[in-house]
């Protein structure tokens, strides 16, 4: 009896978490008349991909009626280099910090924790001034730079915590064989780091893809990432709201991180908890 109640509660909760996805998914397949007729939970009577096509290729993002596709590409051009650089730098930092350089490492650790937690409002104005001075304000490269600068503390902490669990004798053997700092890293440490590379990449990709604040403040109308474009598309106040197009656009913006999540759920969870647990 209590088992039945237990499963009922768990399934009920699962339903609450899934309903928004269901509602958004079905709405994106409905023609606008069906949306206007009401019925949040009804299945589409005449399912169509028209809303998806419009969200992708012709819906108005601000004044440009070009759809999300260019901004979707922007997000990839932003996320891929930012993830690659911040993870690579984090890995070698973590290695240098735990295996070679100890002086002041406690202080650096504290600074990194601050870097993971800092309220970003406090750095926005100086960061904007700095990007403007460098001639990068409003460009994708500027956005990549910002994501790397605020991603490296997170990835360095992740790899630091991971390398603390790698026993030193493995490295000492390599040193006796004459391997230097970089040789030992590439031949001994890096092959051991594949799980952490995956975890850090997933965590960084999710965070950077989903960012909105930096995108809004540091990019222009052409270089905006897809989250910013989605808000401009769905937030338009003029004319009748095309909810089916908005929902399709939301799914387009969400799809890459959702796919990463469902393909690699366990790694994702490890990333979320690994950084925090040592804080």
């Amino acid at each position, binding site marked *: 009896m209590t088992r039945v109640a237990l*499963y009922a509660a768990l399934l009920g909760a*699962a339903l609450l978490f899934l309903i928004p996805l269901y509602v958004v998914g079905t709405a994106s397949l409905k023609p606008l008349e069906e949306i206007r007729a009401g019925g949040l939970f009804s299945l589409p009577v005449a399912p169509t991909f028209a809303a998806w096509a419009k969200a992708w290729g012709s819906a108005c993002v601000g004044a440009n009626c070009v759809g999300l596709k260019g901004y979707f590409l922007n997000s990839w051009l932003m996320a891929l280099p930012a993830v690659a650089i911040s993870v690579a730098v984090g890995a070698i*930092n973590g290695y240098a910090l735990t295996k070679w350089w100890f002086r002041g490492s406690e202080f*650096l650790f504290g600074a990194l924790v601050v*870097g993971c937690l*800092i309220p970003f409002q406090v750095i926005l104005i100086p960061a904007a001034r700095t990007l403007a001075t460098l001639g990068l304000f409003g460009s994708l490269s500027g956005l990549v730079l910002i994501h790397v600068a605020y991603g490296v503390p997170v990835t360095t902490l992740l790899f630091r915590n991971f390398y603390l669990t790698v026993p030193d004798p493995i490295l000492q053997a390599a040193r006796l064989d004459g391997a230097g700092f970089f040789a030992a890293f590439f031949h001994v440490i890096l092959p051991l780091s594949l799980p952490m590379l995956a975890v850090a990449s997933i965590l960084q990709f999710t965070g950077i893809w989903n960012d909105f604040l930096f995108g809004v403040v540091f990019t222009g109308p052409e270089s905006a990432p897809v989250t910013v474009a*989605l808000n401009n598309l769905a937030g338009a106040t003029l004319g009748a709201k095309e909810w089916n197009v908005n929902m399709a656009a939301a799914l387009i*913006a969400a799809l890459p991180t959702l796919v990463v*999540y469902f393909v690699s759920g366990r790694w994702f969870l490890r990333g979320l908890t690994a950084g925090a647990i040592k804080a």
Partner: protein
Amino acid sequence: MRLHRRDHWAALLVLVPTVAVAGLFLFGFALWSGWISLTSSTLLPRYDFVGWLQYQRLFAMARWLTAYRNLLVFGVLFIGFSLGLGLLLAILLDRKIRGEGILRTIYLYPMAVSFVVTGTAWRWILDPSLGLQETARGLGWASFSFDWLSDPDRSLYTLVIAGVWQSAGLAMALFLAGLRGIDGEIVKAARIDGAPVWKIYAFILIPLLKPAFATAGILLSVTVIRSFDLVVVLTGGGPGFSSDLPSRFMVEMAFRRDQLGLGAASAMVILATFIAVITPFLYAGRQRAR
């Protein structure tokens, strides 16, 4: 083991750029913001010194006071409900459930999605003329009313609903990991003493979850302070400024209204608030480490 001097220098060389960038982008920028908050800067920084003037202006603004009060209300409700729901789900999942992996995946998937997406979806679901309210009325419940999105006294709570939906899974995952890390012998001993299940949880297991509470509390506090996307997308701070939050206020003043000094002052207040909230959690986490 003797370290080769050359390798030692290589390690230092690797760390120097990070230390420099972190020093500038974190501490340098925070100090820079603090400096700007003491000037009369408008569109561009102007490095005069006007004392606490911007802070006086800030706390004389009704809009800021509303946003700041909203931050506290939103923060308490969002963290409270996320922790509560997360703990409940973790305890239920911990009762040797079939299909636990699938359920866990479902509870956590909103974490993978941007608050912009969550906000866009919930704005439609909560839209009085087309969403939940209209659907319930269409099903024959004519008096059903759910118009929080257009109600200045309640719009803030829509942020809590969407936020908890997004973040409860994270709390669940942290609590579940905590429960799994507890020595099974403790529970066995209590069983033998004949303690009922709810008592074992209330008096033995939940107190042992203190580290998980600290971690979840820190992560959720960071979410609260940073929450900018959700309020921009879901309510736009409205109706009026009724659901505005300090982060949105800050961006608007600094980047839309050419009030750099005022924006910087609000950022410093946000920072001070964050430090005040996070210190107890960090302290709790440290205690455990010893």
